[in-house]
């Protein structure tokens, strides 16, 4: 275990904590890391509801991909002192589905994920990405907790 770890990052402080934890575990167990950012784009259906145009959709999605690249750059910086193998992947789609897909494709042996991402209230109502991932993942999932606010 912890020989090939998948870490999804969304730019939230909790996801950076997960990355630090995964880095520590990979160093300790001699494992490699795959850092994944999932860009959640707007679909045509969303667009239809909001009455926007195709042009605004494309520019919105371009903006989100741009943010995604920034998130992975930050991840790269944080991983600069890691001596093992690490790869950075960006995918487009539904967050928890993509995380599980990549876990299967890359045949990782574990996933390390923050308990709560950037979705806030929506997560509270619909259940967090981490709980969806832990339910559908083929491999063990380590859920890393938010640092205590106090």
């Amino acid at each position, binding site marked *: *275990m912890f020989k090939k770890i998948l870490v999804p990052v969304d730019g939230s402080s909790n996801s950076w904590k997960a990355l630090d934890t995964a880095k520590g575990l990979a160093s300790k167990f001699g494992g490699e890391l795959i850092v994944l950012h999932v860009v959640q784009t707007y679909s045509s259906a969303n667009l239809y509801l909001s009455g926007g145009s195709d042009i605004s959709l494309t520019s919105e999605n371009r903006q989100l991909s741009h943010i995604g690249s920034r998130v992975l750059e930050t991840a790269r910086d944080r991983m600069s002192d890691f001596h093992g193998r690490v790869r950075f992947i960006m995918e487009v789609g539904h967050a928890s589905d993509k995380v599980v897909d990549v876990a299967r494709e890359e045949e990782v042996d574990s996933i390390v994920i923050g308990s709560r991402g950037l979705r806030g209230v929506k997560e509270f109502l619909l*259940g*967090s990405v981490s*709980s969806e991932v*832990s*339910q559908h993942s083929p491999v063990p*999932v380590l859920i890393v*907790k938010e640092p205590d606010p106090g």
Partner: protein
Amino acid sequence: MFKKIMVPVDGSVTSWKALEKAKALAELCHGDLVVAHVVLTYSNAELYVQEAGGDILDVERTTMKKLGTHVLDTAKSKMEGFSGKVEYVMEVGQPASQILNLAEKHEVTDIVIGCRGLGGIEEFLLGSVSSKVAQHAKVPVLIVK
């Protein structure tokens, strides 16, 4: 990390998988283990609804405790050969909240838990014990598949 791991066991296959994983991690990290079993008993309110007598409640509780002891005995036999320290604890109450209480009381560094226990349909409808624990624990939670 993995210096003092709590593993809740309910006798289900995934809970034994969690125990194996926790044992291996504790060996690698020179950590200790706390193996916990929560006995789910019937409450007085349930009894009231079912119009049963107090005697039945006591009998039920005794049986559940006996089962719990059996689960922990099985855990003990699975932990043979482990070089660290192991504590076995049994509590009565709601699994998720008792697991969280015990984690704080024993000041564990992590919790290793099976993704699905013996809860079956109820777990499916209300969310599993493991996801409740993962959501509310103050320490990292490893969910074993």
